């Protein structure tokens, strides 16, 4: 098997969570693999990222270049083309950076490319059998990828659980000198930070959705707390918008937004047809409602008969505890 590289994303001197997920995926491809982390960047915080990567990976390639102070995918691509060996496998998180980088890089490396990989199901000769989701997650597909002349896989964040591994004491290899001057046709200008509350629920993978069962504007905070603990966004059904407890942009339903999350926590939502029409892509629907006859239970995957005003804080606490333990 060709060497496996993992592209480590980082922000503000901290390696992205995906770093450990890529490691897990590499082991799934080849249980004996000793994947090499590749980190590109520049500046005072950059060394800290390399150090973190060394704690998980046995070998870390460092590409420091002034032009990479901001991860402009075009320049990163040009750097990687100069650094990566022919025929290698490269793992990249399937996010706004991976989508920007990998397709073009695969062309330049003459490597195969598979995006949004959810699972790895083993080797078949020179081929790897991978799992993807299609049609908004309604069905999954097996994909066979010929890796004989190298490949790049964009991995869906969260799809590969980090493995409990013995902390590595990785070797840091500085590849910076192999990279020449980087010039491209695209120049980063600035990042405009979204205003608080300006959330696009149509693109959130995890939604805590509240209905009339929330009973009062002040109780919206219970949902917000849970969402914060889960890393989710808060959406709602129409009565909540009608009562002006949440803005219209948060409404799921035929007269509101159509959402395609992976998990939909329906809290105190009875489940009107109009509301359900706004949920697409077969997410895991978890219904929490104190009325065991609520129609939502007929369409939900998981049902919990409980008063959300009591249940939500409990769940929030549990999630916080669990997260606290893992940090």
């Amino acid at each position, binding site marked *: 098997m060709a060497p496996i590289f993992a592209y480590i994303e980082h922000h503000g001197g901290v390696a992205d969570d995906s770093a450990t997920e890529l490691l897990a995926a590499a082991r799934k491809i080849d249980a004996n693999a000793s994947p090499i982390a590749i980190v590109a960047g520049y500046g005072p915080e950059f060394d800290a990222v390399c150090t973190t990567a060394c704690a998980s990976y046995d070998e870390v390639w460092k590409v420091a270049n002034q032009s990479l102070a901001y991860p402009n995918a075009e320049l990163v691509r040009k750097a990687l083309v100069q650094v990566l060996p022919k025929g290698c496998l490269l793992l990249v998180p399937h996010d706004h950076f991976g989508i920007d980088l990998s397709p073009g890089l695969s*062309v330049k490396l003459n490597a195969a490319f598979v995006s949004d990989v959810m699972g790895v199901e083993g080797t078949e000769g020179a081929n790897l059998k991978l799992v993807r989701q299609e049609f908004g997650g309604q*069905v*999954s597909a097996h994909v066979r990828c010929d890796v004989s002349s190298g490949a790049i896989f964009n991995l869906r964040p969260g*799809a590969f659980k980090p493995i409990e591994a013995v902390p590595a004491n990785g070797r840091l290899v500085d590849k910076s000198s192999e990279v020449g001057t980087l010039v491209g046709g695209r120049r980063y200008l600035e990042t405009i930070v*979204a205003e608080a509350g300006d959330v696009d629920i149509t693109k959130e993978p995890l939604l805590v959705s509240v209905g009339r069962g929330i009973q009062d504007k002040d109780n919206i905070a219970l949902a917000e707390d849970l969402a914060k603990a889960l890393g989710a966004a808060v959406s709602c059904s129409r009565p909540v918008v009608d009562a002006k407890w949440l803005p219209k942009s948060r409404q799921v339903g035929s007269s509101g937004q159509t959402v395609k999350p992976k998990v939909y926590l329906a809290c105190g939502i009875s489940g009107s047809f109009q509301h359900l029409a706004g949920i697409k892509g077969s997410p895991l629907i978890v219904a929490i409602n104190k009325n065991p006859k609520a129609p939502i239970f007929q369409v939900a995957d998981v049902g919990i008969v409980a008063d959300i005003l009591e249940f939500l804080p409990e769940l929030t606490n549990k999630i916080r505890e669990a997260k606290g333990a893992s940090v």
Partner: protein
Amino acid sequence: MEILVCVRRVPDTAENEIRLNSAGNDIERGDLVYSVNEWDNYAVEEALQIVARIGGKVTVVTVGGEEDEEVLRREMAMGANQGVLIADEALNGSDGKGIATVLRAFVQQGHYELILTGVQAEDGGAQVGGMLAATLDYPFASLVNSIEVLPGGKLKISREIAGGNKEMNEIDLPCVLSIQTGINEPRYVGMRGIRQVAGLEIPTFTASALGVDVGTVGVAAARVKRTDYFVPALGKGAEMLQGSSEEIIEKLVALMKAKGGLN
């Protein structure tokens, strides 16, 4: 500005229940209704709006078969000046690279300053735009959610990045951009609009007519192949969680993790 928009015809997830066929290796295609890929539709609207502002021409191209003319007509009814179909048996089974290769050949026949694609397709992989840019050696940006034309052959664009933030970039023309939904509000096109462009001719090209070496495209050249569809095991129907709230929460967290909604 001469703008090319690459579009695809896909089964619309909003109007289909995607089910496996009885053999369990493909989706049930008998009852499917198709439409233009949602992201691509935003790309066409954006192209039309740019042309409305600064003038130019919009061409819409798709790689497929005769049945794909339908989406070209829909986009022409929206206002695209020209539709082009690239159809060739030799292209069947192409992977993203194969499609990018044939599109590159088409682009080189014209003088397009801006090429737009959708970020992704319902059954695709957010790849063709980036690959096309690389084969052409054009700059590329994905997840674009605003475009402003600057003087001097440049665009100011924003990309949608995590947390609803926007990454602002300047990009040189010619370039390839993949367009994110929500960048605009695509106009409505009904049956009437499509009927009005029904008589317009849609030129069709084969791979060889574009000078593509058929050995570099199609199923033989594809290094990525979908072998089958399946439905991941996860029981349907509301499973009522019972027990103490501690137990319920424990089960719930496990289920959410299994579905990949919780890390």
